[in-house]
Each structure stands twice: as structure tokens, then as C-alpha cells.
């Protein structure tokens, strides 16, 4: 038996997981997302990263970015290192990729703001 707290939404359900592999059973979840989260935590825990990337624009020295989908938890610091190598020198929009397919994880690093487009 394992206890987990679901981090999908602010409700933060306390999950109890019993069994292993195919026979896994989850209780304490309010919705289906809780079960999916528990299964993923037991097999390959994933997380998102929200961070910033340097820009070439002094009025907006950093631009907020995130990964387009969750990545394996143990890759967080490697992906951070990739993001910290980049300097954005084009005025990109929200949703545009800063790094495509980062570390071959099939996930892009994308801008979460269009603030550079508003610079004159």
C-alpha cells in the first residue's frame, strides 16, 4: 500500500494505491485524473516545468516558458540546463517553440507570453 497526494488540481486528493502493475487499485480520488496520476506516479512519474528563458531585449530580460507536455521527473534538471543555454533574439508569440523536441523527449519548450510582441 502507498499513499500519495494528487497534484493535478488544487483539491489535492489523498490517494491510496494497492497492488502493482496491471492489478493496481486506487482509492481516495475525486475524479479519473487522480487514478491516471497514481498510475503514472507508480510507473514513470512526470512533471511540468515552468521557467524563464533569457532574451536579447533589455526591457524584457526574461520570457516565461513551459514544456508543452509533462516530462519524466528525473529529466527536470537536464531540461533546465538546456533552457538556460538559450537566448531568445526574435519577437516570438505565446505558444511558439523556443526549443523543439528538447533532449529527444518529444516535448517542446514553448513561450507562455506574447510580451515581446508589444515591445517597440
Amino acid at each position: 500500500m502507498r499513499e500519495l497526494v494528487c497534484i493535478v488540481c488544487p483539491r489535492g486528493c489523498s490517494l491510496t494505491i494497492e497492488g502493482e502493475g496491471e492489478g493496481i487499485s486506487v482509492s481516495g480520488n475525486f475524479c479519473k485524473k487522480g487514478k491516471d496520476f497514481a498510475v503514472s506516479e507508480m510507473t514513470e512519474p512526470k512533471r511540468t516545468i515552468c521557467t524563464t528563458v533569457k532574451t536579447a531585449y533589455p526591457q524584457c530580460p526574461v520570457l516565461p516558458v513551459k514544456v508543452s507536455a509533462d516530462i519524466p521527473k528525473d529529466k527536470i534538471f537536464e531540461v533546465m540546463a538546456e533552457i538556460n543555454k538559450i537566448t531568445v533574439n526574435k519577437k516570438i508569440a505565446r505558444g511558439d517553440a523556443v526549443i523543439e523536441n528538447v533532449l529527444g523527449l518529444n516535448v517542446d519548450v514553448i513561450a507562455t507570453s506574447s510580451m515581446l510582441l508589444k515591445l517597440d
Partner: protein
Amino acid sequence: MKSYDVVVIGGGPAGLAAAISAKQNGASVLLVEREARLGGILKQCIHDGFGLVRFKEKLSGPEYAERFTELFEEEKIDSLTLTFVTRIEKEKDGFRVVLVNRNGVEAVFTKALVLATGCRERTAKQVMIHGTRPSGVFTAGTAQHFTNLLGVMPAKKCVILGSGDIGLIMARRLTLEGAEVLGVYEAKSTPSGLTRNIHQCLNDYNIPLHLSHTVTRVFGEDRLTAVEISRVDERMTPIEGTETIIECDALILSVGLIPENELAEALSVKLDPRTKGPAVNGQLMTSIDGIFSCGNALHVNDLVDYVSESGEIAGKNAALYCKAQRKEIDISISDKLLYAVPQKLDLNKDNSKTTLYFRSRDVLNGCTFTIKKDGEPVFSKKYAFLRPPEMENLLIDFSSMSLNENSKIELDIEVKNNA
């Protein structure tokens, strides 16, 4: 002096939602924001978790804010950024709002006000810590501003006091950027932040959370060099003999938020000592007619979705409040008329079936009664004769005449041949 139905103060999610809904409910709106960009505190909240209720999506703060800013821009609502509201004066039918910006000092008139000024963080002054006053002691929101907007790391090795959500989120954020977060210390016996944040911000990164502990002393001349931590009892009093010294270059405070209500207080709006925000009715109108409050200025919300919702309620009701007010223009008469009733039109009301009574000043034969809008005839009716003792009445559709506050309505009688 420029005049509006609704002036919204604050361009965060609450103010944006209020301005949009006031506009959609027919009001003329001005939004005033002291910073250069709209979006409020969300501009620096780059983490995700916003908008789950409203958009069923996990958005980052900037994404949520920009969705609203774009809606706001589509509505073509007047806005002033880098503009402070310094003073508000109550006038007979509304308020005089004094603004300061690069162009100098300016005043606008408004019938209704929406206060959406957000909240501020409790600072070191509001928690009891002994010792020197070195730099390196700041709030979690300040740390967030430095890291996420300026791209400057405010600490290398830090201690966080208080387990509020902003502190937890900054513990993770600073760790991601390579700082060492030595621990989060909370004087209460339970954490103040969401359980989810304890897990994804602390446990995921092996950052220890120490409940029933507080910072009792700070050390350092120019810059912080260490803090003293003590255990506290149930009454949150430090227990002697439990002190430990921890070397660090920053102490980050996450000890709570207080609604920002300086403007409301200056207007003598009644505050609720429990929420520290204005006491309001179901329309979110405060103790003063025409002043509405929403978002974190009203009470500290944990979800931005509810902030936007309260903005919409306040904005809509501010617009309805203005409609319930009179917006009258005069019906003037030329010297051919003795009098006319009504003398005024309230543009906030339905005037499509207005009965107009009038008498001519003299006996007139073969004449035309006309209603002129800004000098142009918009209605006319021929009469074989008009006589002062005989009152005339007409059913007039004033609502179809596209009237506004500046329209001039005049009643006149033209006589073709006065033979």
C-alpha cells in the same frame, strides 16, 4: 474633464474582468493601472495551475492574464497604464478621480468606481524578528519579481519563513534555477499552503518543511549572513534553548497577504476586520453608493478563477448602477411654443413611446411641428392650425433617434404662409 460611467482601478484579472463586463453591459469604461503592462500579479506567476475552473486547462499566470488582456483589447476599452490614482473625491452624482502619469496630473469624472487594486504581502515589519536590518530579507513576491520578471537571482542559499503558497512556489523556482533552499519554517503546526504545493514544490525537491518553528533573529551588517531558528509552543512563543543558527544569504517571507485598500479607506468605505476588505452586498457594492470592490482587494482568493468571477459581478453591477441613475438631456423649445412636457429625457430609460404635450404661443395657421436633433429635423407633423388654448399631444419614439448626452433636442413650429 473627461467623463465615464465606470472607472476601474487596477488592471489585474479582477479589474480586466470588471472592465469587460461593465462595457458589455453598456457602460463607458476607463481602466487605470499603475504598471506598464496589464495583467497584475499574474505577470510574475509563471507557474501553471491557473484557469482550471474557467478554461478547464492548466494555464500559467501569463497565459491566463493575456487571454483576458486580449478580450479587453477587443472591446476597445479606454485604458491608462503607468498611471497612479492618487485621490478620489466624492461629488454630487459620482466621483472625481485624480490621476498622475507622464503627462502630468489629470482628473476624470465617473458615476461608478470599481476598486480592483489586489493585495500586498505582509512584510518583515509585521513579523517579530530581532537583530540587525541587513539586506537579503524580502517577501516571496519580491523574490518572484526578481527571478521571473527581471531575470535576477535574489539568493544563493536561503531560508523561507512561512508556508504560504507563494513561498512554496518560490522554493521550487529558486531550486530549479540552482539556488539552495535550506528549509521552509512555519510557526503554526499545520502548513498554510495547498497540500498539492507541499508535494510538488517541497517533497519533489527534498526541501524540508519544519512546522512549529520560526525565525527569531537575523544576523549580518550589510547583507544577511545567518538566521536563528527556534521551536515554538502552541501559542507560537519561541521555546528557549531550542535555537539553532543557519547560515544563509536570504530570508524569504511568505507570511500572508492583506487586501490593498488605501483608496477605499481614504473614501471612508467600511471595511470588514475579518477580510480586511470592504464589506459588500450581493452586487459587490461597498458601504458607499457607486463604489464596487472585487478580486484580492475584496478578500484574498486562492484561485484566480474566482477573482475573475468577482470582477465580472462588480463590473456588471457598476454598469447597472449607472443605468439606474438618470442620464438626462433637455428638450428645449423655440419661441413659437408656449411650453412642452416633458422638459427632459432620461437616456437610460425606454423612450420609444413618449407622450409629448405642447401648446403654441400664438394662433398659427398652416404650420408644421418639428423635432430637431442637433438642428436637423427628425420628426415633423403638419397642422391646419394651432391655438394656445388647445393642447396637442403626440406619441414620439425618441429611442430610435440615436441620442447621447451631447444631443440637442429642440421643438419648433414652422409656418409656411402666414397670410
